[in-house]
């Protein structure tokens, strides 16, 4: 059985130095979630060029991919997506009541693994961008 508790005003970001791992996980999950849903709308808008004709679609995607800033933003998107996935798995376990005593460690692990995957992916994302 779950129990909620008074967490105070989490929206008071002036208290950030008092935030626990769980508070940071909550904030990062919200932030990455906002980025991902914003990106989904943008993604469908860009892919909508396929409803014009094939050449427009190919030209649009390849023009975007020729911009260094797009490649860098893609690395950022990967970082955001990987963290949201890993922390999301952690939340599913929390909801199932599994590993509750390891929540903090799981959050730190999600951060470290996200960072490692992001750094390791940089060469793949930037190949041909220069």
């Amino acid at each position, binding site marked *: *059985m*779950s*129990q*909620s*508790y008074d*967490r105070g005003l989490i*929206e008071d970001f002036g208290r950030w130095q008092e935030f626990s791992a*769980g508070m940071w996980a*909550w904030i990062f999950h*919200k932030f990455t*979630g*906002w980025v*991902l*849903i914003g990106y*989904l*709308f943008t993604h*469908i808008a860009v*892919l*909508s060029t*396929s*409803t014009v004709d*094939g*050449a427009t*679609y*190919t030209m649009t*995607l*390849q023009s975007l*991919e*020729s911009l260094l800033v797009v490649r860098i933003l*893609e690395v950022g998107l*990967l970082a955001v*997506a990987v963290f949201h*996935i890993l922390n*999301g*798995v952690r*939340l*599913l376990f*929390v*909801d199932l*009541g599994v590993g*509750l005593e390891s*929540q903090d460690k799981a959050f730190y692990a999600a951060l470290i693994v996200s960072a490692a995957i992001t750094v390791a*992916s940089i060469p*793949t*994302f930037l*190949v*041909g*961008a220069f």
Partner: protein
Amino acid sequence: MADYYSSFEPKGTRWLLQRLTAAFLVVVLAYHFMLLHFVNHAAEVTIAGTTARMSQVGYFITMVSFLVAGTFHGVNGVYNALVNQGLEGTPKTAVKWLLAVAGVMLVVQGIRVAIAMTNLI
């Protein structure tokens, strides 16, 4: 008593769907990123390659399911976040319908895009 905090009380259809879509999206989002950035590089995507992928029944169904699940999870997540911030009353109702309409429009447009990319239909 379990010592944890969750944004949701475990009840209701939206609560369950948010978690079911999460479990699906964990797998498909990772697959989507792997396929279109590491197996096929995004810079090399062409309409021919896209059409070849989207003309496979399994891939087409997976991508449309991905769109529907992602839209629900994202739009419902935004709604929950705003309610969590204290949204209530008329603004809450207005936001609910705005997000619902935006979500439906995104799915409809996404399916139009998927149909334009496939030879199946």
